[in-house]
């Protein structure tokens, strides 16, 4: 009893998670067992910027001119970039452990989420990484830009229900999460263009933009800048032919950022022709301060306020069809979409090959999402029915030809049964 109680306590403290990348994909549980699982994953990708460039950017390397020139070749008029970093710890506690229910498990857990998605024009990219001189005498088109970044931690509680369908054990689950929001930045530019006069004597910005940010003075893991709720749902349906359809909805919810949050907006045509000075002989630091980033931002801001606001979370909808070809081979075919996240619908297929019941390799082929064409490979291993682990990537070529691939990911999981 004391062991059981301590496990429940650990589970309540550390929580649990339902996630698309799941052990269930590799080793389906046919009976309920008390378990703890931890998963970590990162993903980043773009449909226009190669992994090589992104790697340099993320790891803090110097971005050379040839990196930029290479990136420009693949840019389209509109491009997207997305990134996710997730860490989760969940515990599944069969109800019979608690209440004697034989077909349900309680799931509790914690999760750390960091997400960014950007929609950007090629001109914005060139402007950011090569400056405005290249646009002398022309316009840089910035309209349609959308940048979102947030991170949060959540505590969640839910259940998984096991049911028999056509001789198979199907599962369905619900999870409700309470979110502690940490940081948020969002920039939306529905209309925007920047004109640089041929000799640089004037810069004109015609822009309509909204900028939101959580409290900039309160950052870090301990920052509590808002709260929210979200829900995850999933359900498996077995068909008569033993094939399976799985439907998942993740992160259906919102975050309310607190009153210290900032909102700036403008719908204006702003012309900048230098800092006006009365005395030509006053070329000193105060002048440099006038040309500073903040002061220029203030110049193009027509409305600035503090106050709370709410955002809807990017909600993932994932549907896939699983066909068991034989005892060794299984195939998933699916599609997923993330709403409110500058996401392109992703279609994918996974092919599983079971070398034996405790060792499986999975290949992955997909197109869409934040990247283009993706190929991946995952290996999963079960040890004496007590441990399971997996390690893989849906973008395995990113490790070998980063200059020709556009997404990168790695995920790893560990599960322990009791």
């Amino acid at each position, binding site marked *: 009893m004391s062991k059981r109680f301590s496990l429940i306590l650990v589970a309540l403290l550390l929580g649990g998670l339902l996630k698309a990348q799941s052990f269930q994909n590799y080793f389906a549980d046919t009976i309920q067992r008390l378990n703890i699982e931890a998963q970590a994953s990162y993903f980043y990708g773009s449909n226009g910027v190669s992994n090589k460039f992104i790697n340099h950017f993320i790891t*803090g390397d110097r971005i050379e001119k040839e990196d930029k020139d290479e990136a420009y070749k693949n840019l389209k008029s509109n491009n997207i970039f997305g990134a996710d970093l997730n860490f989760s710890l969940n515990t599944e506690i069969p109800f019979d452990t608690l209440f004697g229910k034989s077909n349900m498990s309680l799931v509790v857990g914690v999760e750390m989420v960091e997400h960014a998605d950007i929609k950007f024009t090629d001109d914005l990219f060139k402007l950011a990484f090569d*400056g405005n*001189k290249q646009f002398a005498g022309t316009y840089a088109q910035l309209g349609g830009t959308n940048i979102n970044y947030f991170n949060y931690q959540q505590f969640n509680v839910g259940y998984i229900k096991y049911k028999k369908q056509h001789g198979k054990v199907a599962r369905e689950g619900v999870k409700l999460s309470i979110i502690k929001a940490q940081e948020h930045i969002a920039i939306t530019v529905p209309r925007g263009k920047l004109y*640089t006069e041929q000799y640089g004597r004037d810069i004109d910005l015609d822009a309509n933009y909204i900028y939101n940010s959580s409290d900039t003075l309160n950052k870090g893991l301990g920052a509590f800048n808002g709260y929210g709720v979200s829900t995850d749902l999933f359900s498996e349906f077995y068909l008569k032919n033993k094939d399976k359809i799985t439907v998942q909805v993740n992160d259906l919810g919102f975050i309310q950022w607190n009153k210290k949050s900032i909102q700036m907006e403008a719908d204006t045509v702003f012309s900048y022709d230098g800092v006006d000075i009365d005395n030509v002989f006053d070329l000193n630091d105060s002048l440099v301060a006038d040309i500073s980033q903040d002061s220029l931002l203030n110049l193009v801001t027509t409305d600035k306020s503090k106050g709370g606001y709410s955002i809807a979370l990017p909600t993932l909808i994932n549907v896939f069809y699983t066909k068991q070809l034989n005892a060794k081979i299984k195939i998933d075919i699916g599609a997923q979409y993330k709403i409110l996240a500058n996401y392109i619908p992703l279609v994918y297929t996974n092919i599983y090959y079971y070398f034996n019941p405790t060792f499986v390799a999975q290949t992955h082929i997909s197109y869409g999402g934040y990247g283009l064409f993706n190929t991946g490979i995952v290996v999963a291993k079960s040890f004496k029915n007590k441990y399971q682990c997996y390690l893989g990537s849906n973008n395995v070529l990113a490790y070998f030809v980063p200059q020709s691939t556009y997404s990168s990911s790695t995920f790893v999981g560990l599960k322990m049964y009791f």
Partner: protein
Amino acid sequence: MKTKLRLFFIILTTLFFSCKKNFDTPSWDVEVLAPLVNTSLSLNDLLKDSLLETNPDGSLQMVYQTDLIDIDVDSLFKIPDTTIVEEFVVPLTSVVNPGSTFYSNDEEKELNINNGIELNYAKIESGFIDLEVFSEVKERVVVTLKILSASLNGDTLFIADTIEAATSTTPGYFSTSFDLSNYELDLTGINYNSTNTLVTKAIASLHPDAFFVQVNSGDKIIFNYKFRDVVPYYVKGYFGSQQYQFGPETTDFNVFNTIVDGSFDLDDVNVTLDFENGIGVDAQMTLTSFITQNLSNNNTATLSGSVINSPININRAQETYSVPEVNYSYYQKQINTSNSNIDELIEVLPDQLTYQGNLTINPLGNISGSNDFLFKKHPLKAKLNVEMPLSLIANNLTLVDTVEFDLAEENVRNIIDGNLFVYADNGYPFDADLTLDLLDQNNQLFKTITLINNRIEAAPVNLLLRVETPKMSVLKIPLSATDISELTLAKKMKLTVAFTTTAQPNYLKIYSDYKIDLKLVGDFGYQVNAD
């Protein structure tokens, strides 16, 4: 079970921290082309505002005014400290009753005023009478000093006090100091026909509470009083026919301080000597010498023409007996190019003036019937007014100015290299050649900034010699990484601008709407997130 859990959490922790790696910030270079500074430069920036005036036709002229002479009451005369001693020696031995006066004497006392000045009235602004009285009477004595000529609001000035009885060895003694401020002095004497003369009355009486006393022959009572630090607010009388020398006196001429080289030719110069006489005397001034000097190149020019050594007569002011008390008398003496070589004096670009002359008051004697007057606050002044219509020919007229320049390293460290462009829209009809020097904290030159094309070209003029359309010039300042680093070391920047007018040999008027619009544009490589 415990081992399982321990292993699980070790792996978990490893996973977590491997995912949360903190990376460096990436850096990259961008090419920025942006306006930095927008400003206008006009003559008002180079010259003091007070020096420029706009003529009705919109053209500018430089004006400069400086005081040459300021004659007030201190210059004309002073009432010197005057000490008067009045000694009474008892002629016969007698017994004096308490309260009896045994000495009373009225006297006229003349103040030490010289130079032929004959005052009949003065109002005192400040001053004192210091009084000492010695008594050899062996009983208490009441002494009184009255200045019958001095009154305040109708009351005669008097000082009275008691002197203690003398002993066989020590006389009785009393001293006091009396404030004369605001007293009026009638200086016409007892019979009202004298000048510079006060009327006093000294009295000695035995104190009413004293005992009978024997006053012996030879006993003395001495009144010793002194008029000290007397400054009149107003005086009247005849101030004499006095002649004063002034100068050689040197004064700064702060018009061309920033000009260090070159030459200019003025179409016209108008100089006036303006006199303002608030004193009730006639005056005659003669300017004997007027020299301008440029201390930088030691060039001098001496004024010649009818203005030199010619007496200038200045009429007396009139007393109004109301407010204001005085109607000034004004006189203006023109000094221009037709009666002198004044343009030559200006064209040496002087920074000092040296002048010398004579001033005679009452040159015709006492023609006012001793009604000359002088209020302290209404002097006789002579001012030099210089008006230079800015219609000129300039050749390499070089102005230098040094300005504070402090550029912090953190503000420019991300700049890799590039160029600064100065877009100058010149509305003036002169070329301007620009030189920029960086100075260290000891004002020593350590770098001259390279300028590719340092000339701001003159705007063209029309047939009326007026600028219609400004002329655009582009100055390029290449900045290497070393140059940028050296900018941060500079503490001052010396700007040297040499002007040369166009359309020579015509004189060109400078109009108030002329200006140079300057725009500084940066074209440089910039490292984003430089360490």
